[in-house]
Every structure is written in C-alpha cells, then in structure tokens.
C-alpha cells in the first residue's frame, strides 16, 4: 500500500502542471489587453471611413439630384415650392442638372434645415436606426479653405448657404464639389470661370 502511494506521488503522468497554468494565464491576459487595444484602433479607422462615405453621399445628393417631393397623391421635382406643406415628403437635391445648382433650391434648403434640422438629416439618410450623423453644408468661394472659410454671399450680404450644426473640433469627414450656380443674379461678387458662376459645395459630416 505504501509503495503504491509513493508511486502515485512520484508519477509525472496525467497532471496539469502549474507551469502550464502560469503560461496560459499570461497569454490570456496579453490577448485580452491587445485585442481591446486593437479593436479600439480598428473602430476609429472604420468610423472615419463610414463618415467619408456619408459625406460623399450627401455631396452627390445635393450636387447632382434635382430632389423630389410627394404627398401621396401629387409629386414632382420642385420640392422647393412644396416642402413646407403638411404631409409632404421630400429629398432635397439642389441641382437643375448634375453640377449646376438652382438658386431657389439653395435658399429653400437653407430654410428647411433652419426650420427642422432633424428631419432634413433623416431625409438625407444621415439618421437611421443604426447610425446618427450630424452635418453642415455650405457654399464657399473657390479660394476658401477649411481654416479660412469664405462663404458665398447673396446681394444683401448674407451667406447663401451655411446650413446645419456648427462644425465641432472632432473627427469629421469633408467632401467638396465644384459646382455652377445657375441663376446668379442674386449672388454678390460671383467668381466667373468660362462664363459660369462657380462655387465650392462643402459637406461636413461627423
């Protein structure tokens, strides 16, 4: 009996060694720490990319689409004359044709955003059950930069388009389009290139 017990004690077979436990716990600890660190870095890059896609999408909607409205029985592309009526749904495109913006649509987009920012955000596809982005849209001169913004002004000296929330100092995505303003008689000092009044449509999303 004693010999049997001694044999068992001295046997090295089928045991879970403390060494293994130490090694495994070091690995697990490091794994958890590193995976958390990396997923944090990864998440940042990913959100930056989706932000850029959102800003591109909004820039295309505004610069290339005429927009649309409907109240269930009637519809059309002149949303600028109908957006404020009850039970009207609209997509706020600013173009008369791709790259050429309509003065009235620009003014009404500013009005619509000022009167109900949240619903314009929803109509531009920036607020869904999965995501919620804020935006700022402006028409700037071709010499404008993110640090020294030069807005396009109307003849009364007010910005033609400077809609949305104030741009915060956080991670954001910016997309620019060079557009033509079709009927620019109400624009003060337009920049004329090849006979066209040009401006930069700047979309910022965060």
């Amino acid at each position, binding site marked *: 009996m004693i010999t049997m017990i001694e044999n068992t004690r001295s046997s090295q077979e089928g045991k879970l060694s403390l060494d293994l436990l130490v090694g495994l716990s070091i*690995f697990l600890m490091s*794994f958890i720490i590193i995976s958390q660190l990396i997923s944090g870095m990864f998440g940042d890059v990913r959100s930056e990319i989706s932000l850029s896609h959102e800003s591109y999408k909004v820039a295309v909607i505004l610069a290339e689409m005429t927009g649309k409205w409907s109240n269930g029985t009637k519809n059309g592309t002149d949303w600028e004359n109908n957006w404020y009526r009850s039970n009207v749904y609209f997509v706020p495109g600013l173009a008369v044709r791709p790259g050429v913006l309509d003065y009235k649509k620009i003014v009404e987009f500013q009005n619509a955003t000022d009167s109900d920012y949240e619903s314009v955000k929803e109509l531009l596809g920036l607020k869904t059950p999965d995501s919620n982005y804020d935006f700022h849209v402006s028409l700037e001169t071709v010499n404008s930069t993110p640090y020294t913004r030069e807005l396009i002004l109307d003849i009364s000296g007010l910005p033609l388009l400077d809609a949305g929330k104030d741009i915060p100092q956080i991670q954001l995505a910016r997309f620019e389009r060079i557009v033509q303003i079709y009927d620019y008689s109400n624009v003060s000092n337009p920049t004329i290139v090849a006979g066209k009044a040009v401006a930069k449509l700047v979309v910022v999303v965060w």
Partner: protein
Amino acid sequence: MVRGQMMTLEGIMGALLLILVTYTLFQSSLVISPLWSEFSDAQLKQLAYDSLRILDGNSSLNDSLKGMLLSLDSSFTPNQDFINSLEMLIRPANYRLEIYWVNDSNVEKAVLVDNRPTPEAIAASRIVVLKNGDLDPSSPFYKSGAKSYTPVVVEVRLIVWRA
C-alpha cells in the same frame, strides 16, 4: 521522467508566438487603410472632373476648353486666361495637362502643361467636340479638305496630384 507537460518557458514562448500571430493578423486586416487613401483620391478625382466640366463652356470664351483648343497653334501653349481659370479651380493641387486626338488613323498626343506627376496622381478626362470650320488652318487639329461641319474630337486629360 517528465512527459506530457508544458514548462513555463514553453508556455511563455507559445503565448508570445500566438500574440505575434494575432497582432500580425489584425494589422494585415487594416487593408482598410489603403481604402482611406483611396477616399482622398476620390476627392481629388471628383475635383478634377468637376473642374473639367466647369471649363467646358462657350467656345467664344478664352478660358473655356473649346476656346483654349481653338486658339492652340503648333507650339501647344494654352492661353493664360485658361491657365488662370484652371489653376483657380484645382490649386493647391499640382497638375499636368495632355490632349489626344485622331489625325487620319493615328492617335496624336500633345502635352500642354508638362509637370511630372507623382505615383499617387489621378487622371480625369473630358471629350471636347470642335467643328472643322471653327478652326484656323494653322491649327494642329484642322483637317484640310474636310467640310466645315466635320467634327474634330479632342480628349483633354487632366492629371492631378497633391503638391
């Protein structure tokens, strides 16, 4: 006799190897970062296309694409109004400007603004149609013997990169 056991050193080495592999895998799945740079390329490309579209205006204007092509001679130097307008739209980016057209059955090429692009440069192009009758006989695009309404097609290629 020691059998079937993992010693501390082996455990640590194994852990380090696994961490290295996991880290490398996560790093390589950041192929997303080239997409990020592609996105800034997309912005530049869009600006180049928008600029060409804006410049494609009335042929009577010196700073339009048509006006510039009509005034070209064999020296292939674009007029200064056109250069000023183009630079106003795409600066601070740097650019190179080329044109392509068909002469008989050959595709001819001329470099109007000869800057050397970087490997990250992007290209945008626009097709401009001129009428033979609008061209001066000294123009490189002029087709002698062709009717005045014969179309002359020129591709304007704008290559842009961040300075």
